[in-house]
């Protein structure tokens, strides 16, 4: 980690852009937060299973 931090510091703006682009390419198509996504899914499915609306019915002015 120490080595990584040293490599990341002191980059020019152009180098930083190139580096960030490289990381985007490397991680493309992957869910980087699978646990959090799973929790969000559980939350929404539980809400659905309870027969509840996500957007409460008394929420005026919201299109359904």
């Amino acid at each position, binding site marked *: 980690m120490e080595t990584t931090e040293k490599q990341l*510091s002191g980059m020019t703006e152009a180098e*930083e852009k190139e580096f960030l682009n490289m990381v985007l390419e490397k991680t493309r198509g992957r869910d980087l937060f699978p646990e*959090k996504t799973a*929790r*969000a899914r559980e939350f*929404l499915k539980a809400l659905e299973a309870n027969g509840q609306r996500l957007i409460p019915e008394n929420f005026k002015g919201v299109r359904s």
Partner: protein
Amino acid sequence: MFEFEIWLISFPPLSKLFPLNVSNLSNSYLVSEDKSSFEYRFFFLSKGANTVLKAVQYTYAHKFEDRNVYNLGFGDYDRSGDRIQDKIHTNNGDAYKVFNSVISTTPMFFEKFSDDILMVLGSDGGSEFAENCKRTCIKKCESFCRKFNQRITIYRNYVEKNFVELSRTYWFLGGYIIVNTHIVTERYILGRNYDAILIFKK
């Protein structure tokens, strides 16, 4: 295969994207972005005591009432392990700038997914986190873990401080998790300790 669009951007003027006084958000890092129909992802470098690579990702979670719901993820990206650390405190001395950088991606999300819903949950809000915290707590945690739900509290505080201005553009809902799977959502009421925040455009 998905179609991807990639842009590398200098941060756009927030006043164009976020119609409110967010001058404090101008103090944010350069972010790079990558979008597909299932995710919208950003990376930036936090330059505090150390230089740390940060990732922000909006990931499709579920379709609900004909709207796609995306979940916000944020954490440190560890290149050597090729994984995210979203439960650690980096303590890099630039917490506000990092938070601003995360928040500054939200208007961009709604520019791309204007009919969809954004969901925010804390990475320290799950039952596993609470159980693990109680086992390892060094802060006199007794009946509850003091670290539990700290992250969603940061987002709640931001919403509460800017509620009037944000409400011109967005609807806010608050979600409670009551006894594991019993979940309730309601129109956001200031001061309530929600487990989740849901946001969508007016």
